[in-house]
């Protein structure tokens, strides 16, 4: 036969075989000593993915740091970072790869202990199955419950309950059965309808990992690897309505205009009618373009470029969807949130929200409750701390296309980004639209801001004084208003102390309250600007984020940030209201400059150095600014 003459026939056949393999992505989670790293080390070892040089290094490491005496410590294979090795724990998500004759696997190895729940969520977000480890001696622990909750929240249905260290309980079936029963009772409380497969294993010795154990004849189910090789991760994305978030408008020349993206659900064929969201425009698929030629159809996960039959306006962030079954569009959602950084989530503070390929400013308008992930109990919450899960409402500045997370992971998930640090600070799952977007319409007004301010011969604006307590904000603001009044300008003043007697008398001085305080003042200032007024606001406003929020509420050029730059020592020396003295004595909590940081503006329109100028001079400096910038017509 010809094939036998080709020296590479065997390898060619192998490659052809490999090319047909599918992939399973799963995550492993367990408590600190459940033997998770050992289990993954065992899977790599059994699938012969450990090379000789790695084995040499491992043997040396095992002698130095291992916990298995003279034996190889498989856990050292996967505990990657030096810091982790010293502490003997896994502190971050690590990805491992191995393959069998039937499937290729990507394992997200996620840490078990409490403070790193965020990493587990990271692993869960891209996993199709989860292996939850339980120590046979300890049974279902608090962490086990937490891991299962996160797994179900993030939409994983296939769960393996791997009861490990069976060797340490004498391979006793009764122990195994009791743990399984305990776990099933808990899992029934979860919303996610988990499909649980319990398997008794000993990762250390390899029992029921890749080959059946001779020491647990009472167990008749599959080995762990056998199960992972065959489990159907039943995601019926193919049969769902077509969705593709547009990543990039592909325009090499005037003759070609395509929309590049990855299909997030459903299949698409030339001739299919589509609808573009949020605009609602309709068209038809002309071609599905790829480097390897045009396609007759494309399905979930494929990266393609769509050409439509009509010239319609589409940009990054839009979603191309099946015309008959488009996704929803809204600007207010009920969501689940998981907070991912040390600084807490404050309702009212602005963040960027990225969903699909769209990034928009957003505000968490209402936090309904947080969830105790160990007991599933709902607790009242004003903020969310690191690793906390909460349920609330989110409002975005523009309408976005979405699906509920349970229908489509891509269109129902989002991340929140801090506007100062640009860090990813939280993640969320969309539950449903609050639909207020459809019911609350803006009242169109026939007399607008321009008309009102024209009558007053002035350009309305907000002059926002920020600075430490005692820096001189109110003094200068008063003088400025007097000067404007003398010049027949129509003004109004919002003062920190005064609004707290009325508008904001229901809130205090915690960080969360300060955020809400400024949010309300910002909205009032905006109304005053709409009324055509030169609005003077005087607030410590210690956070750059909130000052930016007010700036963003207004039109370009309407927000004039005045930084009253007085050193803390001077303010404390002046202490006109005796507040610093009280704060130092511990009588006032959260006092800016004492307990709470003040974030100085980096790009204020005007900076007043009160050490060098009198309040009168400062007010005159501001009058000059208003004149030269055209706020005061002659």
């Amino acid at each position, binding site marked *: 036969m010809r094939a036998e003459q080709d020296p590479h026939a065997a390898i060619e056949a192998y*490659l052809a075989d490999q090319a*047909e393999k599918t992939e399973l992505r799963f995550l492993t989670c367990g408590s600190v000593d459940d033997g998770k790293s050992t289990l993954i080390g065992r899977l790599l070892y059994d699938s012969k993915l450990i*090379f000789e040089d790695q084995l040499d290094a491992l043997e040396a490491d095992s002698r130095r740091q291992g916990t298995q005496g003279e034996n190889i410590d498989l856990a050292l294979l996967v505990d990657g970072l*030096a810091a982790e090795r010293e502490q003997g724990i896994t502190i971050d998500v690590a990805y*491992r*790869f191995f393959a069998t004759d039937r499937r290729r696997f990507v394992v997200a190895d996620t840490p078990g202990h409490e403070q790193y729940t965020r990493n587990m969520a990271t692993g869960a977000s891209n996993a199709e199955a989860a292996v939850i480890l339980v120590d046979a001696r300890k049974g279902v622990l608090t962490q086990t419950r937490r891991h299962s909750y996160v797994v179900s929240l993030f939409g994983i249905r296939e769960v393996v309950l791997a009861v490990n260290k069976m060797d340490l309980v004498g391979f006793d079936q009764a122990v195994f059965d009791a743990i399984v029963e305990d776990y099933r009772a808990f899992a029934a409380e979860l919303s996610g309808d988990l499909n649980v497969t319990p398997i008794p294993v000993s990762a250390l010795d390899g029992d029921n990992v890749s080959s059946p154990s001779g020491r647990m004849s009472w167990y008749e189910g599959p080995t762990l690897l056998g199960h992972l090789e065959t489990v159907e991760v039943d*995601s019926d994305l193919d049969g769902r309505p077509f969705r593709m978030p547009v990543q990039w408008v592909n325009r090499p020349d005037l003759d070609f205009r395509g929309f590049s993206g990855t299909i997030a659900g459903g299949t698409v064929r030339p001739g299919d009618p589509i609808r573009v969201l949020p605009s609602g425009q309709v068209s038809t698929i002309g071609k599905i373009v790829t480097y390897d030629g045009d396609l007759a159809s494309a399905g979930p996960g494929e990266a393609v470029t769509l050409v439509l039959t009509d010239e319609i306006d589409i940009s990054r962030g839009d979603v191309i969807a099946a015309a008959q079954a488009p996704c929803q569009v809204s600007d207010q959602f009920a969501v689940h949130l998981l907070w991912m950084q040390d600084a807490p989530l404050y309702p009212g503070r602005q963040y960027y929200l990225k969903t699909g390929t769209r990034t928009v400013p957003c505000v968490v308008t209402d936090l309904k409750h947080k969830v105790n992930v160990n007991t599933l109990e709902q607790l009242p919450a004003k903020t969310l701390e690191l690793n906390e899960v909460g349920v609330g409402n989110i409002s975005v500045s523009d309408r976005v296309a979405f699906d509920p997370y349970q229908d489509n992971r891509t269109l129902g998930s989002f991340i929140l980004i801090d506007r100062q640090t640009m860090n990813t600070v939280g993640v969320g799952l969309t539950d449903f639209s609050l639909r207020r977007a459809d019911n609350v319409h803006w009242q169109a007004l026939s007399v607008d801001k321009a008309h009102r301010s024209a009558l007053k011969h002035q350009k309305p604006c907000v002059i926002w004084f920020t600075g430490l307590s005692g820096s001189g904000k109110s003094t200068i603001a008063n003088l400025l208003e007097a000067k404007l009044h003398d010049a027949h300008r129509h003004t109004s003043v919002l003062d920190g102390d005064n609004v707290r007697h009325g508008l904001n008398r229901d809130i205090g001085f915690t960080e969360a309250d300060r955020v809400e305080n400024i949010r309300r003042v910002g909205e009032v200032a905006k109304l005053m600007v709409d009324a055509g007024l030169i609005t003077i606001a005087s607030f410590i406003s210690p956070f750059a984020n909130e000052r930016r929020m007010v700036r963003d509420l207004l039109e370009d050029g309407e927000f004039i940030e005045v930084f009253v730059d007085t050193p803390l020592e001077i303010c404390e020396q002046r202490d006109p209201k005796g507040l610093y003295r009280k704060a130092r004595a511990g009588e006032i909590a959260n006092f800016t400059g004492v307990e709470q940081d003040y974030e100085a503006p980096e790009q204020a329109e005007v900076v007043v150095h009160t050490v060098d100028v009198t309040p009168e001079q400062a007010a005159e400096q501001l009058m000059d600014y208003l004149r030269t910038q055209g706020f005061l017509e002659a």
Partner: protein
Amino acid sequence: MTRHLTHLKRLEAESIHIMREVMAEAEKPVMLYSIGKDSSVMLHLAMKAFYPSRPPFPLLHVDTTWKFREMIEFRDRRAAELGLDLIVHINQEGVADGVGPFTHGSSVHTDVMKTQALKQALDKYGFDAAFGGARRDEEKSRAKERVFSFRSAQHRWDPKNQRPELWQLYNGRVRRGESIRVFPLSNWTELDIWQYIHQEDIPIVPLYYAKKRPVVERDGMLILADDDRLPLEDGEVPEERLVRFRTLGCYPLTGAIESSADTLPAIIEEMLVARTSERQGRAIDHDSSASMEKKKQEGYF
């Protein structure tokens, strides 16, 4: 999620998605092109990602001046064939100081001519996103790195403070001076790379194929006598042996292996029965078992 896709198709689509996200969000992206097989795959994926447009970013090669000559020829030929902008950066201070692997040792050479040179180039051109061909299966500390890996204005990687990365929602936002290293091949293994090169018929540097080449044996490593800068010890004569390279870098720091694999299927076959991992041929990893992590924190790729 995408069970009808073969795993290579899934990896390909994922990499394309990543590249398009960077293109859409970064102000000034660049692709670090190291000429090796991973870079060849990355470049091929970029051709696919933006088709029919050309990849809308330049290639950057940090040339330590000690690369194999065949790598440089291959680099210039590929850039010309594909019509791409190629930026070659050399640390001229290092050249002026005469830094090289024989005179200064591997770690000083790598630091000055590679790590420092890379930082210089990124600063000089103001790139805010740089694609690299690193894979998570290469080395333990890489297994923990994000696809979008944040770097401070000093180009440092902080393994304990990485940005959360969920779903395919990558956060490419940075403040001025900060940057993102992007690894579109994160989830590929060495075997995937070779299979894909085979399936897609991707050109690679001929050094990967076995051929009679002049080598000297030192400390168990077979060093190619690639030019006359290789100092020969007394009585040492380069000897013609049938060798190839599993990984490419600076020729004095990259060991050849004896092999007769002169076709892709033969290379893959050899890899499948290999008893050592691919980085073993690199001198840099031997310093200490945490050396890669340390180098990464300092800004090495």
